[in-house]
């Protein structure tokens, strides 16, 4: 066989598979897309109708209660700056997308992580898949998202969930595996059932590690929703994308700074929650 002539039809087979899947799953994915998009729009427009100063103060207060006074102050000043720069609406859109994506990634990732911790075979299956998910360039997920969910925020959330979920799975699994064996033994010796052991011993002790995973998921979500602007997600990523196309470094920097501020706020708050759950 002439090796140079023959090419394994990897890409074209995958495309065929995606076509088949999208044909058959289209009613389902379109329905999901419609529901999610309505929900996102409702939250976005709800938040945008509130006066920004009120929301900034509320978020600042929440950051103070959940985190510390410094985080609260930073939240108020940072969001104030964003408002002043005229980036309020895109920032709200970005935060909504991140929270949606994180919620979905956590709801899927934590149970998958628990499963991986409890069954070695499942872990062996899932770990290479996670490696694949994390190392595949993030842009690539954007392409197949479109035939399933169409252009817009739902495709962005879909690809974001795939990209951002692995740390939640990995660190949940790690956190549970790291629970000291004598504590597991103690739980068993006192007659705990498998689920009592999970909920009363393993999960509480794994919580700081799980929170670290969720923190990572949030950070990855944030970086991904910016990239997802390429397939029509609005928000700060959209502003950056616009700045690239128009070659406006100033606008790019401002929008980028907005992303940094949102990232710092979300990171510090989730870290504090994680540290407190020890």
């Amino acid at each position, binding site marked *: 066989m002439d090796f140079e002539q023959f090419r394994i039809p990897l890409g074209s087979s995958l495309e065929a598979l995606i076509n088949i899947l999208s044909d058959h799953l289209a009613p389902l994915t379109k329905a999901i897309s419609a529901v999610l998009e309505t929900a996102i729009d409702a939250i976005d427009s709800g938040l945008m109708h509130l006066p920004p100063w009120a929301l900034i103060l509320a978020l600042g207060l929440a950051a103070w209660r959940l985190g510390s006074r410094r985080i609260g102050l930073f939240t108020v000043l940072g969001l104030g700056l964003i408002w002043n720069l005229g980036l309020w609406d895109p920032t709200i859109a970005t935060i909504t997308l991140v929270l949606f994506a994180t919620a979905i990634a956590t709801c899927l990732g934590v149970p998958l992580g628990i499963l991986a911790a409890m069954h070695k075979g499942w872990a062996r299956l899932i770990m290479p898949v996670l490696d694949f998910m994390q190392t595949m360039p993030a842009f690539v997920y954007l392409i197949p998202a479109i035939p399933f969910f169409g252009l817009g925020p739902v495709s962005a959330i879909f690809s974001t969930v795939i990209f951002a979920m692995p740390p939640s799975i990995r660190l949940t699994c790690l956190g549970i595996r790291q629970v000291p064996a004598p504590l597991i033994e*103690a739980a*068993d*010796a006192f*007659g705990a059932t498998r689920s009592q052991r999970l909920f009363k011993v393993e999960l509480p002790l794994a919580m700081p590690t799980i929170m670290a995973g969720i923190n990572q998921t949030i950070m990855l979500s944030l970086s991904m929703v910016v990239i997802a602007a390429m397939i029509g997600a609005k928000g700060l990523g959209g502003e950056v994308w616009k700045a690239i196309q128009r070659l406006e470094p100033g606008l790019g920097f401002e929008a980028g700074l907005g992303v940094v501020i949102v990232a710092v706020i979300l990171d510090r708050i989730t870290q504090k929650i994680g540290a407190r759950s020890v």
Partner: protein
Amino acid sequence: MEKIVVQNLVKIFGDKPEKALRLLRQGQGKNAILAETGQAVGVADVSFSVTAGEIMVIMGLSGSGKSTLVRCINRLIEPTSGHILIDGTDITTLSREELTRLRRTKFGMVFQGFALFPHRSVVQNVEFGLDIQGIPPKERRDRAMAALSQVGLTGWEERRPEALSGGMQQRVGLARALALDPDILLMDEAFSALDPLIRRDMQDELLSLQDTVKKTILFITHDLDEAVKIGDHIVLMKDGALIQSGTAEDILTNPASRYVERFVEDVDFTKILTARSVMLPPSPTALIHHDGPRLALHKMAEEGISRLFVLGQSRSLEGVVTAEDAARAAEHGDRTLQGIIRPADKRVSAETSIQDIVPLLGSDKEPVAVVDDKNGRLLGIIVQGSLLAGLADKGRTNNGF
């Protein structure tokens, strides 16, 4: 009543235990089986039984299989073969649900590294077993507080375990087991991680607690001093097999093998040996209804001693006479010893340990009387020489000479 009966218990670690089991039945040792099959023998055909209300100590060095053995008893480790009867029920055949129920009601376990839950407060730790049984919060709090007061930790209930010292943490561990009011306490090297002074306190407290709670206790240790102090019976293990079982005195005075001898040679004999094992026959003595001062003086002169124990009816100890008093009475012309008997203060029972006799001997070198607790009979006497000879003798036999 037999609370726990262990029959021919075998635990083999590895994926192909059948061949190892066959070799074990043919009398092969742990190392030979490991070399031939790659299977590790944890417990090799061990049988013993524990009476309700006693403290049974399982002793052995690390790797002797004692921790594996105790974990087979509540099936934290599944036995490979053999039977374990708890109150007559063979627990090796129980289903998972039945086993869970048994663990909740029959067993309390205390661990070497305490194994307290760091995310729960002290009282929440003690409540753990009650919590998973679904006992209402009010009742389990009351029972946990009662258990904490049993171990002397009232007032510490809201602390986190890491805020407590090692000794206090293990009291929490003990309270966690006691809160369930189990029939059986499994204590796996429970005091081994504590420093020696705290450890001795905990041993004393366990013994006094046991006087009131009367649990059946299976206590694992690698320390012979600890074993002989707290064990009513001791099982000695080596390489997964049972080497010897019996009371502390049985094991110390009749070591079944060189291994046991080597084990016991470091033990502090003053704690284990009792008055009975070092006392001398109580001759000569004076008889209160028979001997007068002159005869007493004569007996003392003959033996070269200055004091004589005086016996009454059926050899009961009445007191002592000194040579000085007897000489004075003889000059006065007294015919009996009645007037000059002094109370014998230095008296111990046959079960008193040598540790407690040494201070009695004191500096005046006067002999100590060993008296039967029930009828007051003089059984023997202990002088410093006999005590040292007794100790030296034990040391010699136990060194294997």
